[in-house]
Each structure stands twice: as C-alpha cells, then as structure tokens.
C-alpha cells in the first residue's frame, strides 16, 4: 500500500507549442501541496493531464497506487476537482446540478451539500448565472467536496474570491485536513494562501518542476537579502539566486545564509513563497533569454 495519494512518474505532455517534460511528483496522503508558477507555466495543463483530460505522450499517474485508465469509476469517485472556470452550465440551478450528479456517487452526502451551501451563503434555487464569480467558485468547491473525495484538486480556487471568502475556503480546507485524511493539490497565484495551509510547495515553470519541497524546509533554505551596490562582489554574486537590481541595492535569495552573514551592508529577512517563486522563475527567465 502506497503512502502517496498521487504519484506522477515521467509525465510528458504536449499541447500545441507547450509541453510538460519528464515531470515527477508525489503527493503524500494527508498533506496539502501548493502548486505555484507564473501564468502559462503549466499548472492547468498538469492538472488536466492528471485527470486524463489531455492526452499524454508518456508517463504514468497513480491515485492511491491505481491508474485512472481502466479504473475511472473507482478513481473518479475518490477525486474532487475545482477548475479555475466553473465547469457547470450557468443556466442551471445548483439543486438541479446536484440531482444530475449525485446518482453517480455512492458516497454523495446530500446533507453536506445543504450544509456547505448554507455556510457559503449560496441560494440553491438561484441560477448559477445569477451568482457572482466568487459565488460560482464556492459552488464549485461545494460540488467537489460533497462526495467525500480522498484527493482534492483545486485549480486557482481562490482567484475570484474576496478576502473573507478566501479565508473561509482556506479554513474549510484546514478543517477537512484535521477531521479527515484528505490530500489536496492546490494550484494558485496567491502564494499567501499557501503560507497558511500548504505542507509542500511545488514550483513549476515552463512545464518543468523547479522545486518540490516541504514548505518549512523551503522557507528555512532560502533567505532574502539585499546589499548596497558598492559592496557587491563577484563572490557574493555567485551566492545569489534571482539577482535583482534596484536604485541603490542588489536583491536576491541565497541558500547559504551562513556565508553572507557578517558581510557589512547586508540585510537579510525571511523569504516568503512569493519571493522564492519570483526569484527562481525570474532567474530562469533571464537564462532562457
């Protein structure tokens, strides 16, 4: 029995000019993994290929050790998905959508549906077209959770939400993690959300994984620092990841905090996930150019 809720092995996908190359990723059971990357980095393509919605060139995706192909009925019943754009028809009411989908899920919890609709203040008798973007996203979350999935895949779920709704969604996810053994793959631009709930961070850029690490290790590993221009040396430059030049200083990340500490004129601070994402993907962009 595997300890991974999701295993991606040597995944190669090609969609138009974009490709995901030799991607390997594991999502441990009972953990939340934040998937971050710039626009067009491959987050949605990765999620779609995990769900067999785009064909793969090669590679394998396993859910609790089982491939989706040939086991769609078992595997899909255990997955809840929220896409960045609502996938449900806007001309329908939530109740009708629930009635259409529930016969296919043995574990569909009608009581949970009503509870979550109430919690998110969603009127089940109103058409989805009358919902705001944020309300539509919330409804997507409700539908993804009602059949009690083991693995929840969220593609930018907080993008259209106001801070209160975002906080509520994050709180709901944390609640789920505490009460039940769920695994969550959470793709987002809003890295501050991940600071709150993620156990692991995976950074993807141009279809490749730049890093995939425990959040605590990551934040521990990288330090944000700035140094006055006149104090910059070649040796110091070699220690910097994602060097940025401002009017008076150079800024960047370093993995060797100990090496730079003590150098006069250097200020260090804790690197956020956003800092790490910006510096690491920015550096790659410069190399690519």
């Amino acid at each position, binding site marked *: 029995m595997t300890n991974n809720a999701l295993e991606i092995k040597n995944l190669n996908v090609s969609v138009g000019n974009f490709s995901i190359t030799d991607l390997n990723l594991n999502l441990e059971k009972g953990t939340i993994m934040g998937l971050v990357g710039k626009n067009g980095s491959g987050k949605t393509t990765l999620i779609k*290929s995990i*769900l*067999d*919605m785009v*064909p*793969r*060139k*090669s*590679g394998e*995706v396993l859910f609790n050790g089982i491939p*989706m*192909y040939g086991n*769609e*009925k*078992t*595997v*899909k*019943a255990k997955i809840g*998905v929220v896409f960045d*754009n609502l*996938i*449900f*028809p806007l001309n*329908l009411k939530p109740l009708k959508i629930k*009635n*259409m*989908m529930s*016969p*296919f*899920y043995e574990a569909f919890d009608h009581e949970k549906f009503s509870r979550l609709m109430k919690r998110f203040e969603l009127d089940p008798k109103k058409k989805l077209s009358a919902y705001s973007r944020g309300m539509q996203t919330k409804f997507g979350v409700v539908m993804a959770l009602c059949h009690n999935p083991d693995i929840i895949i969220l593609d930018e779920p907080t993008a259209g939400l106001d801070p209160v709704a975002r906080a509520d969604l994050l709180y709901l996810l944390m609640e789920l993690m505490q009460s039940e053994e769920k695994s969550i793959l959470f793709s987002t631009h809003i890295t501050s959300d991940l600071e709150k709930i993620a156990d692991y961070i995976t950074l993807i850029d141009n279809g490749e994984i730049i890093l995939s690490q425990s959040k605590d290790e990551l934040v521990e590993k990288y330090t944000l620092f700035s140094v006055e221009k006149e104090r910059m040396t070649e040796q110091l430059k070699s220690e910097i990841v994602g060097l940025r030049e401002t009017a008076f200083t150079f800024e960047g990340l370093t993995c060797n905090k100990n090496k730079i500490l003590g150098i006069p004129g250097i200020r260090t601070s804790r690197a956020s996930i956003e800092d790490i994402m910006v510096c690491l993907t920015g550096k790659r962009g410069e190399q690519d150019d």
Partner: protein
Amino acid sequence: MIKRIFAFQKLLLNSMPRLDKGSDIRTFIILFTLIYIAIIPLFGMASFNIILPVASVYLVYRILNGDRKVFQLIPVSNSYVAENVFLLSIILTVFCYLVVWLLAWAGIGLIIVIVLIVSYVSGKAFPSGDSIIASSSEWKNVLFSLMVFLIIIFVVTAFSLAKNKKVRLMGITLFSVGGYALMWLLKLSIPVANDSGMGTLTLNCDIMQLFYTTAYAETILLWLGIACLLIIPLSVIFGLKCYRQPPVSR
C-alpha cells in the same frame, strides 16, 4: 439504471458549449447554409431529413470537444460515456425530427384548414386529402432517408469520439466528402422510368424524385441496408475503441 442514463444524458447535454460568441453563431449559420446548399441538388425537399442528423452530430462533436466537459468528472467507465454519446446523437436527431414534424404537421394542418374554408366559401369540391399527403407517404423514400441518416449519425459520432484531433477531423472530412461524392454518383446512375422505357438520366431531379420512379429502388435499399448493418456496429466498435484509448498517445 434508467435514472442514471437519464441523468448522464442531461449531463452530456449540459456539457455543450454555448454559442454565445458572435463569431460562433456566424460560423454555425455559414456552415449549415453551405451544407444545405450543397445537399439541395441531391435531396431536394428532403434535404431537411439530412441536415437534422448533421446538426445533431455537430452538437455531439461540440460536447465532446468543448471546454465544459462536466461528464468527464463523473465516475463512470469510458465505455459508458461512449455508449451514452451514441444514444445522445440518436435522441437529439429524433428530438429534432419530432420538433420539425410537429411544426410541419401544424403547417400542413393550417393549410388544409385554409383550403377547406376557401373551398367551402367558393362552393368548390374539397381536394382529396390523399393528394396533399401523398408525397410524404412513400415508404421507400422514408426508408432511404432513415438509413442515410443512421449512417451519418453513427459514423460522425464514432469519429467525434476519437481523442486524436487528426484522426477526428480527417475521418469526418473523408466521410463527408466520400459520402457526398457517393450520393452524386448514385443520383447520376439511377435509371429513371419514362414513357419510352428505362435509362433516362436527369440532372433536374433530386435523388428522392428519382428514387420514387426508379425500378431499382428496392435493390438500392437492399444494398444500403447491408451497408447500414455493417457500418453501424463497426462505428460503435470504432467509437468505443477510440474513447477507451489509454491516455498515453502512442
């Protein structure tokens, strides 16, 4: 089971991307006007019988290749999806026919009522009801249309299920062009009975008119029936095989 099939059909229908962009609607209108113009010389008044299954399979194609595939989230096997897609294409066509027939009969009824009233007022004899509906009661023509539309539904739905875009588009294009050419060939080679005997070919008649008069109608129907018996199961097998393909494209 019926409840699940019904729910899945609704899910498929609701996965259809809406024609809400102006360019989408324009493309739809232009495409179907062109198809209609292209088949009028072949099927004449019966072109509507052909355009309805074409419209249905176009909708099925949009469902399968749209961006709101709700049905893909549902925990059912790929075979179940493919079987339901075939069922949907038949239901859509039957539904379209029902709507058109109801409208047509409503129209015919209205015309009959008007003719009756006019005849009553002017004191002329009522026209025979048989003459009004004679053209629609020819069973051979109906059977011919039915078999053509079954072939269209099954073949295009089967190709729509292909996950590989090249296979999908190439298959549908080849079938459309090939089928169209075959129909022209049939039209040009049906010998028509006239006063002096058999063998007159005419470009002025459509297939249905030629079919109505030719002595070979039953032979053509027999061959078309055999083609149907081969094509329909083969299309279903092909469609299921395509949709059940592993996610890894080789």
